[in-house]
């Protein structure tokens, strides 16, 4: 059968950032994928060398707006480790709470987006409505809905008062009820089963070999979570389970994310109960300089392991910062995930790693043998996906 190349991207209307993929297909089946990254390359690592730690904190937040706290927290943890700066007990608790709230917000956002990809728009609307509760809580804690700017060297910027803690508990009750409903829905609803089962299979051996992280690898049954393996913040004391699922497919990735949301709610409740009532949240004097040293810090962000390497030289600016984001680690296994998929399943399989970029917007189909080119928008691709599934009686 002739091989055709389908270029996808870099423009797209919905969630994500510009990125380009060349999908090579034989008939209806994907045989290979070539990602072409770099449309959002802004030069942040270099820019960090010219900015002080205080300015840099705001810049690293904007590496990715969805995991902004994860980035800022990891950057600060690296600087604190390099310079031997102490962080107070209470600040650690607050960092954990914000990190977990952010995980809930990100996982719900992803669940909604996944609903949209499989044509389940009711789920999309429901989840995004409930997600507003988390956004309200984050706004109450930090003062902003996205990009919280909570961390500074040696602590956090804002305290959580007992009244606020009660408000968070109330919000969590609502979220727990809704998330349990989504759990039931994901495990029982046939729409989700039929569109996600056995699609985008990543076996654990290949996944580990290619360095997949986060829910992508946990859905293949590998117990890898920085919160358990190399605990940071308060995760070594907190009571939660490491969620894995052994179906190795997109369905597993949906279930892992939903179950993790429930675990996150548990962690936040534990943190609120055990947080010291008194204590400083930040050092008395603002720390501007970091003593000479180097550090390597790991953080379990929503999408997987986030790594920062930082070298300081005793001034108020870092000498070198290296960032490795989870999507960067997952992009290699994306080729494996997409191999063997139908074109109609590409949007959900692509979304299943929760990429920080995606681009199902405009698809150009090129038939190499005939030299013919035609273009599909994301809507048309989605429509085709539904028609294909009806035709094949997969609903």
């Amino acid at each position, binding site marked *: 059968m002739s091989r055709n190349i389908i270029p996808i991207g870099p423009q797209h*209307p919905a969630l994500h950032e510009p990125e380009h993929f060349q999908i090579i297909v034989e008939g209806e089946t994907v045989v290979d994928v070539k990602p072409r990254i770099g449309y959002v390359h*802004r*030069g942040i690592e270099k820019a960090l060398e010219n900015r002080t730690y205080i300015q840099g904190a705001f810049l690293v937040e904007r590496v990715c*707006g969805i995991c902004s706290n994860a980035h800022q927290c990891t950057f600060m943890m690296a600087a604190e480790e390099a310079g031997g700066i102490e962080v107070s007990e209470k600040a650690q608790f607050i960092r954990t709470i914000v990190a977990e709230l952010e995980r809930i917000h990100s996982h719900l956002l992803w669940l909604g987006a996944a609903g949209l990809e499989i044509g389940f728009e009711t789920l999309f609307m429901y989840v995004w409505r409930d*997600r507003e509760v988390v956004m309200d809580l984050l706004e109450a804690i930090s003062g902003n809905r996205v*990009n919280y700017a909570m961390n500074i060297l040696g602590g956090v910027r804002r305290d959580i008062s007992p009244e606020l803690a009660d408000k968070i508990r109330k919000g969590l009750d609502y979220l727990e009820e809704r998330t349990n409903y989504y759990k039931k829905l994901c495990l029982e609803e046939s729409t989700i089963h039929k569109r996600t089962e056995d699609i985008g299979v990543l076996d654990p051996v290949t996944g580990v070999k290619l360095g997949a992280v986060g829910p992508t690898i946990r859905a293949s049954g590998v117990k890898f979570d920085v919160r358990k393996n190399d605990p940071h913040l308060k995760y070594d004391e907190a009571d939660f389970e490491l969620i894995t699922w052994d179906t190795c497919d997109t369905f597993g990735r949906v279930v892992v994310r939903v179950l993790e949301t429930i675990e996150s709610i548990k962690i936040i409740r534990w943190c609120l109960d055990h947080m010291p009532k008194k204590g400083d949240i930040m050092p008395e004097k603002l720390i501007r300089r970091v003593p000479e040293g180097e550090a390597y810090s790991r953080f379990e962000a929503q999408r997987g392991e986030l790594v920062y390497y930082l070298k300081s030289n005793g001034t108020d600016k870092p000498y070198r910062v290296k960032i490795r984001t989870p999507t960067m680690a997952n992009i290699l296994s994306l080729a494996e995930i997409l191999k063997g998929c139908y074109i109609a399943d590409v949007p959900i399989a692509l979304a299943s790693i929760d990429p920080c970029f995606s681009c199902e917007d405009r698809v150009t189909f090129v038939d190499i043998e005939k030299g013919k080119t035609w273009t599909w928008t994301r809507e*048309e691709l989605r429509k085709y996906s539904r028609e294909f599934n009806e035709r094949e009686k997969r609903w």
Partner: protein
Amino acid sequence: MGLLSRLIKWARIKSPWILHLNTGGCNACDIEVLATLMPRFDVERFGIILMGSPRHADVLVCTGPITKQMKPRFRKLYEQVPDPKFVMAVGNCACTGGVFKGCYGIEGGIDTAIPVDIYVPGCPPKPEAIIDGVAKLLAKLQNL
């Protein structure tokens, strides 16, 4: 003004279709733009619908600074939008380059590549601010 042009103007104000475009930003504005379309804020009541193709859109909603790689493609995309077209720059980066000013990979705000009609500052702007920007844009259409 003839009946037909009055009708076109009425239709344009009642149903501005938008194309949401990230030109190299951090996703924060994107999720807020999307949240604006979701049940709580629901700008669909103004007839605003998110479109997939630039050829169907009236308004380009741009987020993020322009990266050097994205600029030529972004211009191409702008040219695909049928006239009269309107551009809304959402977020500080889209307005001026924001926090990324000085990074080697970026060109600056959206207006370094294409003309902009409405600027919505904020990092990211709250959905209320985006709705305010939309309302101002609709007022601008009224006086067209």
